[in-house]
């Protein structure tokens, strides 16, 4: 192990790690909106809108994220969609994870006992009110866990954005390995940074989970 080299490249990798965090955080935020939109579309009574949402989810889940990224980045300009690499990473990441997340959200909402909603409705709560104050708080615990798993997937997926030359952690690691020929040292450092990020996300999920379940007894 060449420790001098490791000390030397650490600032570069930390800078790249911030890009990874940045791209994942934005992707998660927009992905959540996409997911909520998809869940909303699936609650429509007009069937073609539901089919559209189902079809979108099926196609996104059925094709590799990598191919989606390449399609939008390289194929996008020919349909008038020019995005810079970073934006492309955020957008594709969001629309990809949104499809998975909408399934997680829908699953957790459906896991809440139907009687809860019926009781609330019969007590005079409106549809939206029932959703917001009765169903969602109960679905939250499950939702946080499953969305959290997807957040970690998103962090790991963000490494693929290096292919469209966003200078994030994997891109920087690959470039440094290529220029220094010290794969073990660079891998150790960059893996460590991914692990720190993943554990930070897991910690946040755990805190959110505890907060969501603070009134429920296990």
């Amino acid at each position: 192990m060449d420790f001098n080299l490791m000390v030397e490249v650490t600032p570069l990798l930390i800078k790249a790690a911030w890009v990874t965090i940045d791209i994942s955080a934005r992707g998660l935020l927009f992905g959540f909106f996409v997911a909520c939109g998809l869940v909303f579309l699936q609650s429509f009574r007009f069937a073609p809108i539901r089919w559209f949402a189902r079809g979108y989810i099926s196609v996104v889940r059925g094709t590799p994220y990598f191919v989606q990224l390449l399609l939008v980045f390289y194929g996008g300009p020919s349909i008038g969609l020019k995005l810079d690499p970073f934006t492309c990473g955020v957008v594709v990441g969001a629309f990809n994870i949104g499809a998975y997340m909408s399934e997680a959200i829908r699953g957790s909402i459906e896991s809440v006992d139907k009687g809860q909603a019926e009781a609330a409705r019969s007590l005079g709560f409106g549809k939206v009110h029932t959703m917001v104050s009765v169903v969602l708080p109960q679905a939250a615990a499950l939702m946080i866990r499953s969305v959290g798993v997807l957040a970690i997937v998103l962090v790991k997926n963000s490494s693929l954005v290096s292919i469209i030359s966003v200078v994030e952690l994997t891109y920087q690691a690959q470039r440094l390995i290529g220029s220094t020929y010290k794969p073990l040292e660079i891998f150790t450092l960059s893996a460590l940074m991914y692990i720190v990020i993943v554990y930070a996300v897991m910690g946040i999920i755990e805190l959110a989970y505890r907060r969501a379940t603070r009134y429920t007894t296990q």
Partner: protein
Amino acid sequence: MEFDFGPVITYFPTLLKGLGVGFLVALVVAFMSIVGGLLVAVISIYINKVVSWPLRFFIWLFMTTPLLLQLYFLYFGLGEWILIPAILVGILGLGFHYMAYNADIFIATIKSVSDGQYEASRSLGFGHGATIFYIIVPQAFIRAIPQLGNNMILMVKDTSVLSAIGVAELVYASQYAISVTFRPFEFFIVIATLYYLINIFMELGQAWLERQTAYRR
């Protein structure tokens, strides 16, 4: 904005060749990751801590870091010692990655087989090894099938990532064709469609397999 799928048809044999390579890789990786994952799980549960801790560390490391980073590490790391073709690096990288995921599943399902099974088998005269091999592992394997199926579907999609280290699979084959024809949109749409079809078939296969083994679970 005009679409021309002519080049895609011209280069379809190239794509098919890429598809073949991807299929081959997926097949080898599926075998390697399932058998290897089972071995890792059995060893890390039943053999002493000296052996099991490194294995647990391996599972943990491969599950918390991205596949692409692991691939680059193997590609450059192995490349330092021996001259090794990209496809082998790809198989090893993808294989290890999913071996870790499968081992994690097998550890959970092996632990879910009740202790009574082990005790009953031992009291009927089976040895320790024979109990694990004939009683515990088959039950754990059947229980793991739904999640294994999910992992294998993810794995087939991840074969596309191998193009990054130069494995001549579908995406890599198309990149060559795109550099000649300048039709990225058409090619990637066709590739996405191919992956989608494969995915549908795999999901049908998974559902069938789950139905077939449901009564044993």
